[in-house]
């Protein structure tokens, strides 16, 4: 028997039903893997991070309020305030978003509302290629091009600095923002646009007054997902931002992010299970996970709600 070129053999019997039960069991086992991953991550972070907070040398409030992070830097009295690492992450994410959000939105608007077919045929693949470039390559670009050729001529930028890493992370997030925001704009029903044109609006006015507000929740979701991506970005930061945790807003100097601290510790392979240094990775990773998971979750919820609006 043939359906659309595919041969379907029919053996609907007790045997095949038993077989199906087996298959379903196998498939649910597959589905369990992803669930187990999440459970594994959460359990691991909770257990090991609590090992950090419960150890005698560590007081929880100092983790939140100390203005220094010197784990892996000095001996003797330890400072382990997460603030410098958070500030590093914040600085780089902020710079990245200053680049990726406006540029991404403009690209998305252009692609959704203006782009002639020919421009689209170039721009779309270019964005896809950019999205496919491994992050370690962008890190290399930051160290070998952005810092020496773009930033150093401009001012007192250090060899490793937050600005360079921020720009590279921005480039990294750009395709993501563009494609998600474009999806959001495309999903706005044609009728809304046509109505606006009918009332004599120009394209710009239609875009700003009708399309953007209608697609707003989708765009916000895109932004949130991009932020989560930037917060979790690792290799660019490890290459370009240096390895000094600093609590400042100055983008010209080195800065260590949460991800940067984790990678630095792995690179030096000084992760001996049971030590404060080892537990500190999990404490930092727990904060990182909560932050990114939270932002992603909100983004997904908004995105889903937005999708439902127009379906």
């Amino acid at each position, binding site marked *: 028997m043939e359906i659309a070129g595919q041969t379907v053999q029919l053996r609907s019997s007790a045997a095949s039903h038993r077989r199906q039960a087996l298959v379903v069991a196998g498939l649910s086992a597959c589905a369990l893997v992803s669930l187990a991953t999440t459970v594994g991550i959460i359990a691991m972070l909770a257990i090991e991070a609590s090992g950090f907070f419960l150890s005698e040398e560590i007081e929880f409030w100092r983790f939140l309020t100390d203005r220094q992070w010197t784990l892996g830097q000095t001996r003797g009295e330890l400072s382990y305030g997460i603030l410098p690492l958070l500030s590093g992450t914040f600085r780089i994410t902020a710079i990245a978003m200053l680049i990726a959000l406006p540029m991404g939105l403009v690209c998305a608007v252009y692609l959704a509302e203006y782009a002639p077919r020919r421009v689209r045929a170039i721009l779309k693949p270019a964005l896809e290629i950019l999205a496919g470039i491994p992050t370690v390559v962008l890190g290399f670009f930051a160290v070998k091009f952005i810092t020496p050729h773009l930033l150093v001529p401009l001012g007192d930028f250090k060899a490793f600095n937050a600005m360079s890493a921020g720009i590279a992370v921005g480039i990294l997030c750009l395709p993501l923002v563009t494609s998600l925001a474009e999806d959001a704009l495309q999903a706005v029903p044609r009728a809304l646009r046509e109505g606006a044109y009918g009332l004599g609006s120009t394209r710009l006015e239609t875009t700003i007054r009708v399309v953007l507000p209608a697609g707003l929740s989708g765009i916000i979701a895109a932004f949130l997902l991009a932020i989560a991506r930037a917060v979790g970005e690792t290799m660019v930061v490890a290459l370009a931002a240096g390895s000094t945790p600093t609590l400042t807003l100055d983008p010209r100097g080195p800065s260590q992010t949460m991800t940067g601290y984790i990678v630095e510790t792995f690179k*030096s392979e000084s992760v001996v299970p049971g030590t404060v240094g080892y537990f500190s990775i999990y404490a930092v990773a727990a904060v990182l996970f909560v932050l990114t998971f939270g932002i992603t979750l909100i983004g997904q919820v908004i995105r889903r709600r937005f999708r439902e609006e127009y379906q």
Partner: protein
Amino acid sequence: MVCHPVPDTSTEYQIIQAMSQLKSPFPVIAVLTSLILAGCDATTNPNPSTTGGGKGSSGAANLEGSISIEGSSTVEPISLKAKEMFNDQYPAVNISVSGQGTGNGFTALARKECDISDASRSIKASELETCRAAGVQFIELPVAWDGLTVVVNKENNFVKQLTVEQLAKIFRKDMAVKTWKEVDPAWPAEKITIYAPGVASGTHDYFMEVVGKDVGMRAGEDGQITMSEDDKLLVTGVRQEKYAIGFFGYSYFEANRKELKAVPIVNPDGEAVTPGLESIESGKYAPFSRPLFIYINLESYQRAEIREFVDFYLNNISEIVTESRYVPLPAEIYQRGRDHLDKELTGTHFLDEKGDHRSGTLIETYTEDNLSKK
């Protein structure tokens, strides 16, 4: 087994070998890669010895097994040289060398994760205690002299020499000056950027021992200091920033001589001395000359491949040390080391009964009598 870059075997032979063994994870791929790569490899790879394959490549018995070396990045070049030369002779011994810092090396030794631990300072009382608790015994072997080298950027033309006091101003936590002007009023009021080895590094400890024992190094909160166990990152940092200063083992300076400037250090006699092979050997380059060590796990030393390796190491020590740009120790010290190995004398020479660090030169300290008693 990817392919065997042994110069005298033909490509076909390797392919047949690969096919007959099917030891590789992906036989087809292995054969293909052999096909593509092996032919050229034998002739073009300038240093085939270090890739030496042949792990159990035939039934024949040559020395086999594996050796794991961890610890100081300062000693790493010496270990790598020894590995390279040893593998020339015994290609089937798998030697892994990693330089993640002296402290990490001792941790690995105590956790029985390595056979030999490299160190750019002698073992500390606390580390000795961990080893004892874990039941790890070791043989302590000095292998070379190093001159810890303070470097500045090539374009830095105002720093002509530095005293230990001036270094203290720059590096100590309680002084931590911001600009060069604060070090010497004649120098520019430019911010100092600092690249220093991290705390897991023996170089860090040795430097702070001299500069400010109990105070510790400044931390990174002001963004002026970058610390890393990776010496390469330090070299890169100082090379790229005009007002940077840093320090590391002499070998790393020697390897990057063209791009960095070593600062002469004023020794206790009041003489400013540039680090160099002669000034380190003569002891003039003080107080930053120091011995480098390897620590061998006694249990591992019972294994044939380790014994053979350490034997080879000591027999070729001058060449190994010189080629890795360090200074060989007096022959007397090496002879004592050999005695220690023969008698399997374990423990450290540098800590007294109370766990305090012994003072005195290496030749005075490294004697059988000074071994810590169990």
